């Protein structure tokens, strides 16, 4: 029978207490009456009976409690709506941010066993680059001599012109060694991926398409495999299509072609342009792999002391390739969401505490009438659970709506989807948060209230006061953080990039090789296009450069050789056509612009940035000085010095720059640096020029597409887009926090006034002035908000310290941000205590005293 008693625990306690013994009796008689196998049947029946009865009896009680709760909730809509709203806000903030953070920071990359994937870099920390791209020769040697990896692959960004099917289009892709797909462990959706044969020079061109490209250009036609496409005029046979979720190295990648090396590619170990990825063997730890690669790096350095003296290998998990800024933005948002959640929770705690005090009389009566304490607890749990579930549903709906707005915070550089998918994790989180909210803030105060031990009012009052202080402090932290980030953004937006942004259009024409491998051929194209563009009405100046500022192609750092200077220097290299500095509004500090007369036959010339001169010939103008770079021995003569510009983004000071004349570029040499970004400065809205420009380019070369059409103003705005989203979100959180804190203050004071009606009435009767009564209320509010502000500002300073990396030089103790927060705190206090103060003033001494 002990087993039956155990089974009885599935029924609600009240039912068990009432009928448990009777049911046991029935079971015992049936057991005695049954014979043989019948006894087994009696037991099986008992098990299923008690499961069903238990569920039904619980449902009965829930149904009853829910009806009771809804009736009470209906009678006190203020309380119920506040609880639902507060829960919804807290849960919405937390789930939205956590789902983005989980997507970007936590969730495994969409590759099998993705934890085994690593990126390999040349570690040139000694030269100032902790993660540098890899030269083909080093890649070849790493691949041949390492034993820690099942496969290793190299790839590089690729951008080709697709012609021959409708409008010419610029396609972003990657050229990759055949082992890339094996290393990532992803099979194609259709056809096959590259084989080692296709890595050989001279093999026929093949291409693997991304799912989105296949859908967009071929409408998802499976017969695409085997078709020939013209990329940069070269035929490529489509051999496969990748699955929809696959994007590598970034979301923009639309095609993959084979990567081929000629013998000469291996000649120079300082020609770094490869990205390298590898898959660790399952039994090799990351530390082991690092150790092995370090040993290989040291050996290569010993074999090639001239080129690799200070070069080693860095092995980094693919997951950790996320930029520090992207990570910081998200971590700060997580912190902010936690604050909102904290404020929401303390608010709920405070609400339920107040309610339990207010309902003490009701509980006492019901306990006296024989309702068991557990039964009462259960009803209160049902109440808080119902309200929390409603809040949770609302909050989850809000966060589902909000997540797409946060997708700007998902970096494009990771091979993951743009928008996080709402999945069971998000729901689980919401369910957990909801249940904990209900249990924590419904039951504990209820437990205390139903214990009968009448909790002293003052203790509850103090507890609620503490909660309000915490809310004020947390909202101050959020406002301070918002303020600091806004100040940082304004400062960033106020940065002078060094060039003029207004009314300047940029677009890219990446000229395909080998069609344009001679400088003369390219020069003809540029001069024809530029000549006609300059004739357009409203155009002030136009030119072409290898890589425009604020672009994704950063070009490369070239070693410079300066006579009389020890050791190599580094500078960014760019080739330009005459008129570039005028088109960009970059002032020339000394000398002249590159001229049409600087041709292949004349003396090689260069324009360098001020910092280049500063680094090599401090205190001089630099004009007339000569230098060489690693790819060419005849020296260049400096004919002009240009102002420094921010090439790599507003937040970073760029390295010294060298600008060379495109006309003096040798044929077939470093064609990667062939100018491709046109800059057109106009006196009108430059986008209106676009149709005419398209026509001009199409006339010069009908199969040449235009891509990356942008205004410089737009580019500068993009620089701060992620920050703007972040500030927008944190600002919203701060607003919510402030509202909640104001609600908290208001609730506490209203309650206190209600509880002290008699005292206030007595004071009025004894001659207290309205001013004194109002002072009583405001005084309490002010004390709380002052305590909260002091704690909040101290915490805000600590928080500001941790996000200094994002503050762009704004001090965490910024007086503006802190002042604004303190001001808002005062405002919130006044707003929150206004109504309770008025109510206190409205207390009629006669009525208050009579009710006693």
């Amino acid at each position, binding site marked *: 029978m002990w087993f039956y008693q155990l089974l009885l625990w599935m029924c609600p306690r009240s039912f068990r207490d009432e009928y448990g013994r*009777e049911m046991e009796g029935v079971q015992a008689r049936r057991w005695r009456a049954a014979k043989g196998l019948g006894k087994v049947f009696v037991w099986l029946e008992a098990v299923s009976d008690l499961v069903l009865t238990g569920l039904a009896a619980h449902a009965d009680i829930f149904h009853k409690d829910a009806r009771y709760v809804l009736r009470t909730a209906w009678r006190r809509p203020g309380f119920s709506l506040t609880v639902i709203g507060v829960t919804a806000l807290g849960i919405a903030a937390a789930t939205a941010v956590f789902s983005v953070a989980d997507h970007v920071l936590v969730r495994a990359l969409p590759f099998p066993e993705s934890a085994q994937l690593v990126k390999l870099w040349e570690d040139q920390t000694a030269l100032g680059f902790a993660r540098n791209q890899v030269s083909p020769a080093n890649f070849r040697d790493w691949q041949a001599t390492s034993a820690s990896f099942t496969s290793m692959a190299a790839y590089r960004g690729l951008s080709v012109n697709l012609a021959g099917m409708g409008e010419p289009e610029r396609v972003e892709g990657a050229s990759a060694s055949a082992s890339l797909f094996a290393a990532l462990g992803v099979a194609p959706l259709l056809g096959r991926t590259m084989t080692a044969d296709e890595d050989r020079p001279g093999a026929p061109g093949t291409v693997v398409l991304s799912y989105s490209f296949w859908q967009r250009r071929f409408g998802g036609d499976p017969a695409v495999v085997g078709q020939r496409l013209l990329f940069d005029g070269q035929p490529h046979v489509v051999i496969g299509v990748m699955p929809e979720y696959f994007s590598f190295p970034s979301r923009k990648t639309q095609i993959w072609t084979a990567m081929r090396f000629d013998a000469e590619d291996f000649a120079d170990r300082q020609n770094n342009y490869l990205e390298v990825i590898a898959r660790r063997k399952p039994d090799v730890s990351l530390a082991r792999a690092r150790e092995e690669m370090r040993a290989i790096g040291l050996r290569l350095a010993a074999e090639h002391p001239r080129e690799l003296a200070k070069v080693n290998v860095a092995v980094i998990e693919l997951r950790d390739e996320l930029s520090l800024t992207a990570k910081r933005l998200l971590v700060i948002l997580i912190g902010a969401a936690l604050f909102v959640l904290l404020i929401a929770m303390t608010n709920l705690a405070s609400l339920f505490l107040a309610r339990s005090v207010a309902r003490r009389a009701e509980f006492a009566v019901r306990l006296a009438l024989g309702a068991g304490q557990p039964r009462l607890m259960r009803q209160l749990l049902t109440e808080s659970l119902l309200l929390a579930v409603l809040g949770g549903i609302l909050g989850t709906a809000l966060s589902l709506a909000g997540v797409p707005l946060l997708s700007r915070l998902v970096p494009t550089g990771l091979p993951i989807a743009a928008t996080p998918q709402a999945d069971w994790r998000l729901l689980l989180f919401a369910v957990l948060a909801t249940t904990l909210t209900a249990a924590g803030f419904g039951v504990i105060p209820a437990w205390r209230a139903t214990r009968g031990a009448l909790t002293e009012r003052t203790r509850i009052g103090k507890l609620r006061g503490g909660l309000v202080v915490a809310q004020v402090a947390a909202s101050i932290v959020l406002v301070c953080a918002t303020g600091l980030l806004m100040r940082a953004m304004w400062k960033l937006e106020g940065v002078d990039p060094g060039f003029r942004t207004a009314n300047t259009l940029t677009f890219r024409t990446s000229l395909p090789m080998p069609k344009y491998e001679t400088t003369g051929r390219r020069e003809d194209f540029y001069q024809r296009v530029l000549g006609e563009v300059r004739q357009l009405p409203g155009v002030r100046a136009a030119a072409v450069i290898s890589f425009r500022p604020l672009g994704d192609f950063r070009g490369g750092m070239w070693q410079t050789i300066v006579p009389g200077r020890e050791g190599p220097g580094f500078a960014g290299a760019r080739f330009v056509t005459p008129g570039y500095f005028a088109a960009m509004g970059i002032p020339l500090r000394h000398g002249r612009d590159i001229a049409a007369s600087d041709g292949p036959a004349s003396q090689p010339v260069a324009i360098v940035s001020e910092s280049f001169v500063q680094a090599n010939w401090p205190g001089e103008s630099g004009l007339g000085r000569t230098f060489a770079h690693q790819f060419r021995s005849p020296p260049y003569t400096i004919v002009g010095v240009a102002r420094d510009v921010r090439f790599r983004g507003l937040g970073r000071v760029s390295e010294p720059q060298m600008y060379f004349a495109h006309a003096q570029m040798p044929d077939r040499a470093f064609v990667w640096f062939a100018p491709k970004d046109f800059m057109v400065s106009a006196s009108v809205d430059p986008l209106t020029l676009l149709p005419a420009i398209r026509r001009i380019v199409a006339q010069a070369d009908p199969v040449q597409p235009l891509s990356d059409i942008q205004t410089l103003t737009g580019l500068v705005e993009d620089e701060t887009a992620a920050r703007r989203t972040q500030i927008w979100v944190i600002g919203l959180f701060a607003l919510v926090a402030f509202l909640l804190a104001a609600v908290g203050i208001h609730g506490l004071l209203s309650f206190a006034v209600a509880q002290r009606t008699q005292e206030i009435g007595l004071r009025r009767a004894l001659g207290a002035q309205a001013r004194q009564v109002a002072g009583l209320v405001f005084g309490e509010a002010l004390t709380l908000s002052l305590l909260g502000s002091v704690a909040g500002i101290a915490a805000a300073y600590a928080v500001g310290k941790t996000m200094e990396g994002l503050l762009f030089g704004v001090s965490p103790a910024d007086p503006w941000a802190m002042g604004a927060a303190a001001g808002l705190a005062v405002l919130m206090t006044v707003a929150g205590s206004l109504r309770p103060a008025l109510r206190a003033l409205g207390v009629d001494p006669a009525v208050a005293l009579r009710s006693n």
Partner: protein
Amino acid sequence: MEPESLLPLPNATFHILLAVADEDRHGYAILGDIETRTNGQLRLSAGTLYRSIQRMVEQGLIVETEERPDPEFDDERRRYYRITPFGRRVAKAESLRFASLVDQARALGFLTGRK
């Protein structure tokens, strides 16, 4: 409350009302009575019985009695139930509902074959 508002009664409820109609019975006796009257076709489980009893007490159809009609065989765990006047009215209303159904069935000729 109007007896009709509870109709139609759940099967178990009606049978329990019938079982306690002529004398007060305890749970196990109710089960036995139902089994006898239905020739063993209706065999309620303990859970169904006591959940029904709980609801019927709440609805005022039956009450727990203080008297022990059969003191000799009584043991402390037995509780006896008695039908209330309201319970009788409800049982009657349900019986009339059945009777009217049977009348309708007869008018349509469903019962002729058995006569």
